């Protein structure tokens, strides 16, 4: 296996609020290869966005990474100062967010914001940077970019703003793009445009992509490998086929059963996951999904299971898998 581009080791992030320590991310390990598209799925509060913000060094007070390592091209990003991170962010790792209106500055033209990113990280003149900005806008499919470059963000539609965000993110040819719910605020036909664009640019520029979303359909479309998060932990990780056809964690199974399948003709009753996600101020001692799981056993409430390697690409943290294994071993 090649050397991973990014490797996250046992990262824990907490928010120290007045109600107590919110343990948003409670120890995650994963990696991403060069040119790969990795999906992180989970519901609100699962820790997926906090994971991304921790990697980027963008956590705001009172959030803090309290443990772990993030290796990017052999360097531990968590050891870097804010100043050093500034030359990584936007240059080697770029990020796009859910809401393109709040992440673009309303008082600068779109062109200015792309030029700013290019001039910040590359030794180019303003004029060259502007030419590059036009080229980037064309690349992301903005019509008549020579003219649109002088528009302000409010003159762009939602889909075009997200395209502009992608143009800024990719202007310095980063090796990793982190997209946090990039299409959640967009309409389906615009979502299809943006996802197509991300796929196309990933191939063209050979950028690795981490796509964070709650939408299993989006992941199935874009990503080759998937991480399922719940309660600040990775519940299951595998290739697309592992997760969608051979889900092994009851949470993944539950998620897949609770969404209707549009391509199925017969009307099936949805199977919801009962209850609500855990409170991460007082995270449960055992498996965070135990309170909602249909297979809960005594041990689930007491101890968090270790990962069971199901295949070379597929792992999950569930006592059921451990039991199966031991039974098979006892035969």
């Amino acid at each position, binding site marked *: 296996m090649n050397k991973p581009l990014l490797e996250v080791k046992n990262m824990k992030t907490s928010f120290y609020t007045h109600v107590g320590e919110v343990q948003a991310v409670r120890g995650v390990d994963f990696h991403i290869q060069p040119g790969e598209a990795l999906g992180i799925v989970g519901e609100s509060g699962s820790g997926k966005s906090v994971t991304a913000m921790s990697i980027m060094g963008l956590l705001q007070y009172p959030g803090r990474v309290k443990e772990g390592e993030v290796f990017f091209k052999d360097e531990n990003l968590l050891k870097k100062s804010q100043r050093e991170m500034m030359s990584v962010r936007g240059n080697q790792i770029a990020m796009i967010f859910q809401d393109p209106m709040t992440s673009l500055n309303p008082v600068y033209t779109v062109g200015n914001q792309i030029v700013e990113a290019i001039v910040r990280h590359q030794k180019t003149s303003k004029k060259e940077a502007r030419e590059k900005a036009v080229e980037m806008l064309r690349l992301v499919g903005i019509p008549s970019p020579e003219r649109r470059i002088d528009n302000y963000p409010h003159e762009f539609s939602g889909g075009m703003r997200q395209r502009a965000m992608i143009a800024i993110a990719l202007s310095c040819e980063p090796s990793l793009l982190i997209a946090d719910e990039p299409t959640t605020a967009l309409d*389906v036909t*615009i979502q299809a*445009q943006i996802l197509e664009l991300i796929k196309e640019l990933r191939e063209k520029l050979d950028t690795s992509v981490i796509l964070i979303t709650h939408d299993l*359909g*989006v992941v199935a479309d874009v990503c080759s490998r998937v991480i399922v998060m719940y309660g600040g932990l990775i519940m299951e990780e595998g290739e697309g086929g592992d997760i969608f056809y051979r889900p092994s964690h009851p949470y993944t199974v539950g998620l897949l059963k609770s969404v209707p399948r549009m391509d199925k003709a017969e009307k099936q009753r949805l199977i919801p996951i009962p209850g609500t996600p855990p409170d991460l101020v007082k995270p449960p001692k055992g498996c965070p999904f135990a309170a909602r799981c249909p297979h809960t056993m005594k041990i689930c409430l007491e101890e968090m299971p270790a990962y069971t390697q199901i295949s070379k690409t597929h792992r999950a943290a569930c006592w059921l898998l451990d039991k199966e294994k031991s039974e098979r071993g006892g035969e």
Partner: protein
Amino acid sequence: MTEKNKTFEPLIEVRNLTKYFEINRGILGRHKDYVQAVDGVTFTIGKGETLGLVGESGCGKSTTGRTLIRLYKPTRGEIIYNGVDLGSLSQKELVPYRKKIQMIFQDPYASLNSRMTVGDIIGESMEIHHLARGQERQKKIYELLERVGLSKDHASRYPHEFSGGQRQRIGIARALAVDPEFIICDEPISALDVSIQAQVVNMLEDLQKELGLTYLFIAHDLSMVKHISDRIGVMYLGKLVEIANRNELYDDPLHPYTQALLSAIPIPDPEVSRQSRRIILEGDVPSPINPPSGCRFRTRCAYAMERCALEEPEIREVKPGHFVACHLMEDKIAD
């Protein structure tokens, strides 16, 4: 008409419903323009049926819902409920219909008064409509809370103490408090997490069965709309472009917009996703202040002809129960 093989008895008939919003422009605000939010929409909802209404933001689906319940006064057109045109009634005359028609809103955070207890939120409408008071009201509130999967103890709490899914349940209990016949669900699950969405949708289905409710289910999530609806209408820029039985619409979408919309939905199955052919629409939705002439979809349509710019296509029955507004369907109608 519906697949449940029920006899189709219309509860609400919407004819040529139009809603324009006036906006003032120019420095002195003297120049008047109109946002053509809903323009000439016609459909019928049968008793006990669920009609899904889908479309992208700005297509007028929510405005249609809000005009149906007379939160907006229609600019033109009729809303015939059990033989009475709601569009022409005064606010006072509307009161009995407000009891029969209820609404569930998208944002469970904004739609509950944060200074009222859950019990009062649910009970308020009972008082307004003189349905129950005192002990009886209290008893009914408890019943409703239990019916939507909450408990008695929740009645004295405030909305901020609840999660999004629970708040949506409170919103549903409030709608049920006046024993309505017809409920307009305006994106009731869009703000909820995936695992919670299924809980709410199943509950809506159960309530429909038990109480014989009729739903207008407005959403942009087509897979959920397909799941819950008997028939589905597709809107684009204020127009109803296609309406048909749920399976018919998904198996044989005839309007180019419906085809694009359906193909754009990501399916949680990598194989299916890889094989499916996406129709990627160019550009964005035009402004409803100045919609394109003729067919409003023509600026993004791959099949647009000269005629599409000149003449607006009427919505017509192309197959039994399947209505489409597109000039391409001309030959089909002639058959």
